[in-house]
Each structure stands twice: as structure tokens, then as C-alpha cells.
């Protein structure tokens, strides 16, 4: 094992290895920053580049790119309220309010640190878990998927600012939107009006880009001020950001654990990870008043989970040859082109490749975080650029990103519609966050609910230990705030 680890690390020490790592990381950063584009796209683009490389070198450039995407996506999430994918959506909840207060440096510092450490955590767990990864994967089935999705949905109750009714209405509307398209189980088309594009439903990424980036650029344009407005940019913020991760180490650790565990479970994905990490941070925090308005703990939890999940997602890819996410599916395809068939055989024959993979993931994350930290001050200045320059650029990049994701014009239309819609949702005081959470998780919830009914019947939810535990946790989640306010004195009053 140690010999394989060493053999896997050696390629990273060569000049070509380092160069490819840097190249991959920079490509990953570029794709991560562009809205809509991310891991799958950069990997698909790099595959032809790897044709002439050895399997080790190919792994380095591919994983390097993949590892750089999440944090780069968070940069735009924090600075311009544009999460590249659903996986960094929760970063915007507190990251962007911080930018508006002129504290982009603080948010970026915390994000970079939590990202790098989260990735290291995930990779360490991956290395340790390979022997028992199988059991973990097998323990989660449809009822557990359902409960995790519902747990994510229960976040809506926590993130609601202002009227809870408006949050519920937004969430309900998001759930309704998630029912558009072919039924995930029966294949029946619902609300598609004979349009093939709608067979796949409202895709989360164009909707996200619209709701956040386009809506934000409209808002900026109308308000005619820069993102940070009249706030002064705090230069010292970056160091405070780094320090904040260590001051809130418990928040970071819990976020990382949630990210890794969710990453391991194929079929749930990173979308749930960052919401759950965010939710539990609010749950366990004593002072909840700042969340959604710029609490650094919200950024730390979401970022730790977002990066730790990649290590987790490699577990099913390596152990079963079953990818935990779309990125992993592309990576799997690339490895196959290099004559490596991921799965049990790879684990036995080419452990060195797996170690190259783990080391590269860690190094790429550290590299991108360092680049992020070094440039954080400059990046933070972006929030001071007048809206007349920033708004059109965000608008254009968002539309280009939406199109180049799948080369479909329909995606651009969805992005535009959700942009205009998102602008009014915000203006009228409804919750964008609730709507997005419901849209993202609605499909997983209905799919796994139906699958449980067919495969195990309704009892499936309650006879399986993990599912039952999750169910009880959800109940506690939702009732705890009421139980707390329900003081003994009130109870006496009721008894009288």
C-alpha cells in the first residue's frame, strides 16, 4: 500500500506532472468561474488533450481541472451572486451579502481556506474508506435518498427571511416547477405541451443562473450602483477570513463530514450536500440572527461540504465503477480511453493510479485556494466596479454559459425567463432560496418516493434504521424551534 502511494505520488513531482497540474487547475478555474460551465464540460474538453499522455499524466490534468472547479465557482457565487452549479448555491446565501457589505475579502478568505481543508478532509476519508466504502454505499437506498431530500427541503423553514408564508409559497412553487417533464419513474410527460425540450423538465442550472446571475444583473443595472455600493472594501478581510475557519472549526468539520458522506451516496449529489451543511450550521448555532445576511459560518459550512464531497464521490467511482456525479461519469469515460476500467479491478491492479488521483485532488485544491487567496484583494475590487460595466458582462456571460452547457437554445430561454422572474421574486419579497432548493430537490424527492413505494412499500421508510433516524431528525429539525419557545410557564398557562 505504501509502495503504491509512493508510486502514485512520484509523477506529481516531475516537471511535466507539475506543469500539467498547473494547466489543469487553471483550466478548471476558468470553467468554474464561467456560470453554467463546470467539471463535466472542462473534463470533456480536456479528454482529447490527454490522448497522447500516460494514464498518470492524464489523471493529473483531469483531476487537477476537476479539483479547481468548486472553489472557482464559489468566487463568482460570493462576488456576483452567481453559483456555477447547484453545488455552490448555498455559498451565495451568506457569501453575497458579505460582498454587498464590502467584506468580499473576508468571504473569499474563508471560502478558500474551507475549500482547501474540506478537500483534504474528503480525500483523506476517501483513502481510509476504500476498504469499507462498499458497506457505506450499500446502506443507502431509495428511502434514505427521499429522507435526505426532505431534510434538504426542510432548510426552507430555516432560511426564510421575513414572512414565512412567502417562503412556503416560494418553496411550493419550486416543487410545482420540479414536476414539469417526464415522470422520472413512469416516463409519462407532464406539462410538456408537446415540446421535447420540456421532457427533461426545468433544468436546475439554467434556472439557477437566471434566478441569481441574470436577476442580479438586472437589479444592479436598475439600481445603478456597484455590488458593494457605498461600503468601503475592507482590505484586511482576507486574513480574517482564513482565521475565521479556525475560529469556527466545529462548523468546518461538520460541513466536511456532511459533504463527504453525501458525496459517497450516488444519486443524491452535491446539491443536497451544501444545503444540508448550511442547515445544520444554522441549527446548531446559538445566534441565528445573522444567517442569510452575511454570517461567515454559512460560507464556511457550505464551502467545506462542497469540496469535501468530491473525495466522497470518488468512493463509488473507484469501488464499483459507478460514478457518484456527472463529473465522475466523464472522468470514468476518460480513464476507460486510457485503458483503465474503474471498479474492483483497478483497486487491485492499479492502486498507484488511485493514489495519483487522491494526491492530485488535494494539490489542485490547495493550488486553486492559494491562487484565490493571493488574488482575493484584486477580486474583491470587482465589487466596486460601476454597475454599467459589470451588469452587461454578467448578463452576457450567463447567457453564453447557459448555451454552452448543452448547446441548447431552450436553456438560454429558461435562463432569461427565470432571470426576469427572479428579479420580481426578490422585489416582491418572496424567497429565491426557497424556490431554488425546492426546484433542485423536488425531483430527487418524487423519484425516490415512487421508487420506495414500488420496491418496498410505504413501510420501507420506517423499517430501515438509517431512513428512520433521518425521519426522526427531520421531525426534530422542524419542531425544535417551537419546543424551545414553548416555555414551562406557557405550559402552565395552558394547563390552567
Amino acid at each position, binding site marked *: 500500500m505504501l509502495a503504491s502511494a509512493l508510486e502514485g505520488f512520484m509523477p506529481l513531482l516531475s516537471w511535466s506532472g507539475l506543469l500539467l497540474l498547473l494547466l489543469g487547475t487553471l483550466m478548471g478555474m476558468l470553467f468554474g468561474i464561467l456560470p453554467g460551465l463546470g467539471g*463535466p464540460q472542462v*473534463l*470533456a474538453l480536456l*479528454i*482529447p488533450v490527454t*490522448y497522447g499522455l500516460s494514464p498518470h499524466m492524464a489523471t493529473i490534468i483531469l483531476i487537477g481541472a476537476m479539483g479547481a472547479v468548486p472553489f472557482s465557482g464559489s468566487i463568482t457565487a460570493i462576488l456576483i451572486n452567481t453559483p456555477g452549479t447547484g453545488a455552490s448555491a448555498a455559498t451565495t446565501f451568506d457569501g453575497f451579502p458579505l460582498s454587498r457589505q464590502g467584506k468580499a475579502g473576508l468571504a473569499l478568505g474563508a471560502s478558500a481556506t474551507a475549500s482547501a481543508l474540506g478537500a483534504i478532509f474528503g480525500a483523506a476519508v476517501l483513502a481510509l474508506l476504500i476498504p469499507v466504502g462498499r458497506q457505506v*454505499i*450499500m446502506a443507502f*437506498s*431509495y428511502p434514505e435518498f427521499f429522507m435526505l431530500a426532505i431534510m434538504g427541503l426542510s432548510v426552507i423553514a430555516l432560511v426564510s427571511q421575513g414572512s414565512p408564508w412567502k417562503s412556503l409559497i416560494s418553496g411550493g412553487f419550486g416543487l410545482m416547477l420540479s414536476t414539469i417533464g*417526464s415522470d*422520472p*419513474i*413512469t*416516463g409519462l410527460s407532464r406539462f410538456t405541451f408537446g415540446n*421535447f*425540450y420540456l*421532457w*427533461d423538465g426545468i433544468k436546475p442550472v439554467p434556472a439557477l443562473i437566471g434566478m441569481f446571475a441574470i436577476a442580479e444583473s438586472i437589479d444592479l443595472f436598475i439600481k445603478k450602483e456597484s455590488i458593494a455600493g457605498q461600503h468601503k472594501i475592507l482590505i484586511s478581510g482576507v486574513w480574517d477570513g482564513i482565521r475565521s475557519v479556525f475560529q469556527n472549526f466545529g462548523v468546518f468539520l461538520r460541513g466536511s463530514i456532511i459533504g463527504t458522506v453525501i458525496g459517497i451516496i*450516488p*444519486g443524491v449529489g452535491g446539491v443536497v450536500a451544501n444545503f444540508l451543511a448550511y442547515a445544520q450550521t444554522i441549527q446548531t448555532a446559538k445566534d441565528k440572527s445573522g444567517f442569510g445576511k452575511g454570517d461567515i459560518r454559512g460560507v464556511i459550512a457550505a464551502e467545506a461540504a462542497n469540496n469535501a464531497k468530491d473525495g466522497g464521490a470518488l468512493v*463509488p467511482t473507484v469501488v*464499483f*465503477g*459507478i*460514478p457518484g456525479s*456527472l463529473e*465522475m*461519469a*466523464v*472522468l*470514468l*469515460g476518460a480513464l*476507460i*480511453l486510457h*485503458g*483503465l*476500467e474503474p*471498479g*474492483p*479491478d483497478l483497486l487491485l491492479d492499479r492502486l498507484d493510479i488511485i493514489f495519483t488521483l487522491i494526491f492530485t485532488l488535494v494539490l489542485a485544491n490547495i493550488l486553486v485556494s492559494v491562487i484565490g487567496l493571493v488574488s482575493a484583494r484584486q477580486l474583491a475590487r470587482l465589487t466596486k466596479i460601476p454597475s454599467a460595466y459589470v451588469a452587461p458582462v454578467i448578463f452576457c456571460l450567463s447567457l453564453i454559459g447557459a448555451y454552452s452547457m*448543452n*448547446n*441548447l437554445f431552450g436553456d438560454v430561454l429558461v435562463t432569461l425567463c427565470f432571470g426576469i422572474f427572479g428579479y420580481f421574486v426578490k422585489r416582491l419579497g418572496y424567497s429565491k432560496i426557497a424556490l431554488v432548493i425546492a426546484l433542485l430537490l423536488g425531483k430527487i424527492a418524487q*423519484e425516490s418516493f415512487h*421508487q420506495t413505494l*414500488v*420496491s*418496498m412499500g410505504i413501510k420501507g421508510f420506517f423499517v430501515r434504521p438509517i431512513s428512520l433516524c433521518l425521519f426522526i431528525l427531520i421531525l426534530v429539525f422542524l419542531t425544535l424551534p417551537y419546543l424551545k419557545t414553548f416555555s414551562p410557564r406557557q405550559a402552565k398557562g395552558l394547563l390552567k
Partner: protein
Amino acid sequence: MKKLYVCLIVFVLTLGLCGPGALTAEAFPQKPITIIVPFSPGGGADTYVRLIIPYLSRQLDGANVIVKNIPGGDMITGLMKIYRARPDGHTLGLFMTPGQAVRQIVGGVNYDLGKVTWLGRISTMGYIMALSPKSKFKSLEELQNADKVILGVANISGAIGTLISSEKLKIKITPLAHRGSREAILAAIRGDVDFVQFPITTLRPVLKAGDLKPVLVFSKNRLADFQNIPTIDELGHPTLIDIVKIGYYLGGPPSMPLEITRKLEKAVEAALKDKELRAKADKVKRPIIESNAPEARSDIHAILDSYAPFKEVLVKYLK
């Protein structure tokens, strides 16, 4: 001055004549050739295309060949992009049976696979039926005698061969859809569905690892690495061999110019016969089982004919 005008007019006219109309096989390709894959990157079909591309490019004198993934709409969004592309040979695509053929038979779509300009078949392979080791059913007979058997499928249109074969084998199935074949296979390993039926290459790794138990092969002869598993032919259903199989084809939009078609047909055939490619494909267990353009064309017609009698079964599950 007048001369200059005339000169200019002639120049423009010649340019016009040399335009798209005068595109000849020698001048082809004039720009990168795009192969549209109607899936997200990473799946089995996508991997096949990416394996082949360098060799196809070599056959076309180093022309730039690129993959464009257009997923969604149960493979129809991508298919329509190919079907409606300008038929100049610069836009080609990957086609897959049975899914796309089934959709055509059920109706409600605007394409006819019979009209596609077929360039060749990349591969085809039969399915294998695999039982979950955790299922209470331990053999094909037990499946046939059961009142309710849960079958894990990826999506209904792709699983149509399995639905037909289950009807023929008198297995009372309840199909349960998943996001993809991998999720369905994982469900079978966990024991949440009783059995799955997928192409041999897809299932081989989990069968070798002992995670699932092979019961039946949909091919004429027994497989070299699963010698003790009976074939569907031995069970007396030889017609099912052609129904329960998957096919990957390369084609272009209808009515492509003949000269360009011939050039592409030749390039595809030569690329697929390349020894280096075949060795590489065998190594990653994605064998090339090619056929040339005329054979591919008759293949497709045969597939459309063989599913036509099952229209009722298809409509039952798809509408």
C-alpha cells in the same frame, strides 16, 4: 472603371459558383466535422465515439473531428439536431437502437430512421439477464413462477427489448425506472430490485466481481467467459436475439451528397477496421463489432421491422 466592375462581377459570380453547391469530395471537409452524441459526456456511447475519433480523423487526412454532446429528451433532442443539420457531411451523429427506433414506432416524433444517411455500425451486442444475489428468486424458473418480479431499468424506451422478452418468457414484471443503467445496477446489487438486463459490456465487471448472478444470455452462442450460462436460443426463442440487443451507429442527415457520403463511408469503415483501435477497444472491453454502410442501413430497417409487431407493448409502456 467599367472593366473593374466586370471583373468584380465575374469574381463574385465565380465565388458564388464555387460555394456550397460545388462542394466536391476532394474539397471535403472544409471545416471541422462535428459528431453529435445525444447523451451527456461519459456514458458508454460517448466513450465509443471518443475512442474512434482519432482514427476517423486520420482517415480523413487529419481533419478536425469534434464531439458535441446534446443530451436530453430521451435522445431525441440530439437526434433532431443531426436530422435537421445541413446535409454537407460536416455534421454527423451517433444513433442508438433500440431507443430511437422504438420512439419512431410509437409515433409522435418527426424523424424517420429509414431516411438517415447511414455510414456504418460501430458495435452491437446482446443483453445479459442478471439476478440480484439478495433477491428471493434464485433462478429463471423461480422468476417465471413468481406473481410479482421487480425489474430495474434505466428508462423505459431503452428497456423495451427487456419488456418484450419478459412477456415472452412469461415473467410478471413491474419495471422500476432509475436515472441511468448504473443506478439500476446498484439497486440490484443492494437487492432493491430482483433483476436487471443490460448489454454484456455494461454488466461484465459486476458479474465478474460476483455482485450479480448471470442467468441468461441474449445471443446465438454461449459467451466465452460465461460458458455455463444458457442462451435465449437454447430456451427456444431465437427471434428474441435480434430484439434484445443494443446498437451504436454513425450516420448523417438525410440526403447527403453522394460523393461526400462515399468518402465518409470509406473513412468510417477503414477507421473501424484499424488494428490499433480494435486492440485498444478490446482492452477496455468495448469491442468494435462493425458493419459497413449498406449493412448498417439494412440493419436499421430490420430493427424497425422487428419491433413493429410489438407496437402495442411499446405503447402500453411509453404512452
